[in-house]
């Protein structure tokens, strides 16, 4: 459940496990699955909203992990960021290919009506910094970002969802990205 510390405790060993996977260690591969499959499946399910598609995304992400584990250290610092990226892009790619971007079918429920979607964010310093910067955005812009990043909605889906022109969505997102970058880089 909400044990933010647990993730950090295993962060070091996760990187070690990935290094072992790069050397062909099956047991390490299994261990990563045991440690992270639920988290990654949750991320994929949030985007795809369909268990079978989420399973496919997680499977493909783990195969990518197996094939590309030796590439991890070179480009990514945080193993959890890397693993999450693998599964997110697979899930996003599936949704784009399935054509959800041109249809309202299968759109997520109105999760944006929740007062604070990010209340469950971990208590790390990175999370606190992001949270502080997100809080500086107007609430509707913050919602745009969470609907995009967590739920995987495209520009077109966001426009349909919020009943605004796609051009407005694009410029809101760009402005939000600019503010976030200035805010986060400034605090770093």
């Amino acid at each position, binding site marked *: 459940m909400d044990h933010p510390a647990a993730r950090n405790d295993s962060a070091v060993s996760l990187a070690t496990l990935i290094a072992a996977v790069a050397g062909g260690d099956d047991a390490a591969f299994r261990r990563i699955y045991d440690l992270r499959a639920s988290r990654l499946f949750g991320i994929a399910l949030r985007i795809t909203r369909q268990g079978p598609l989420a399973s496919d995304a997680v499977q493909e992400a783990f195969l990518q992990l197996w094939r590309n584990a030796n590439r991890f250290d070179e480009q990514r610092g945080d193993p959890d960021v890397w693993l999450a990226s693998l599964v997110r892009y697979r899930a996003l790619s599936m949704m784009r*290919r399935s054509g959800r971007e041109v249809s309202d079918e299968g759109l997520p429920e109105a999760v944006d009506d929740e007062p604070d979607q990010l209340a469950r964010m971990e208590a790390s310093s*990175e999370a606190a910094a992001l949270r502080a910067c997100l809080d500086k955005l107007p609430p509707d812009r913050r919602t745009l970002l969470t609907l995009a990043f967590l739920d995987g909605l495209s520009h077109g889906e966001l426009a349909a969802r919020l009943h605004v022109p796609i051009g407005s969505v694009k410029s809101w997102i760009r402005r939000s990205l600019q503010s976030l970058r200035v805010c986060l880089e400034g605090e770093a």
Partner: protein
Amino acid sequence: MSGARPETPEELHMLAGEYVLGVLGSAEMGAVDERAPVDPQLAHAIAGWERRFAPMLTAVAAVAPPDGLWARIEHAKAQAVDGRQRATAPPRLTVVPSTAAPPPAEPAWQRPAATRRIWPWKAATGASLALAAGLAAFMLMPSLAHRTEAPMPGGRDVAFVALLAQPESPAAPHQDASAQMASDTGLARLVEPQPASSTESAPEAARMTGFLVAVWPDGTVVLTALSPVPLPGGKTLELWIQPPGATAPKSVGKLAAAGQQTTLPAMPVDGTSLSISLEPLGGSPTGAPTGRVVYAGTLRQVRR
């Protein structure tokens, strides 16, 4: 190059941010996937946004995956590890979106660098190179047919083949071998090519190194080292692709010395060039080959 590049660093960051957020459509995502591996600044900007947004993911509830997912992963992995394992096709527990027949390509900048040997191949002599290559392709085919879970749009047969040989060695026989493989429907029924060179002593001429390449209709490519590839310390191999008429090669990714399976960024055409260069361990820092091209060859379409 293709498309208009964003003019300012700010625009680059915006594009990367949109990509990481996931708001881009399929074509725009694909364009970033294509560009990132040859544009270190874009790749760096993407990594930055992934890091910035990552804490949000901790707000997503973990959900236990269905029983059986691990078995599926293990099965798929076993087939990727060793093409010789002729296990039965994995049980298809789920469906893919109907419009998504080919397995989605990996983001190209995440691609490369598998170290697993697809096919442990021992030395092939020059005289039997074509035969060996044909045999390898023939033997790889059934295992690859099992590999993918989604049906391949163009069938299960190899679409393109190539032999990547040392550029300084006589090129003609290798070209011939590629063309002959492509035109031979049986692939295994290949005849031997002409002798490489009458001026070299027979054993030297016969000692071949290089890679056999087979490309499937879904863009899957399998590269198999024909004999152990000597790698200088601190170096890695990187694979490059260059369609006919293109001005510069694009990186496909780093390549394991024994060969590996990966995915091409786009389907090649007959005559697309492949080359393998020696690069620093992290891959080419510039997006273009920086080291010596050790193997090169041309993809030929298989005609049936």
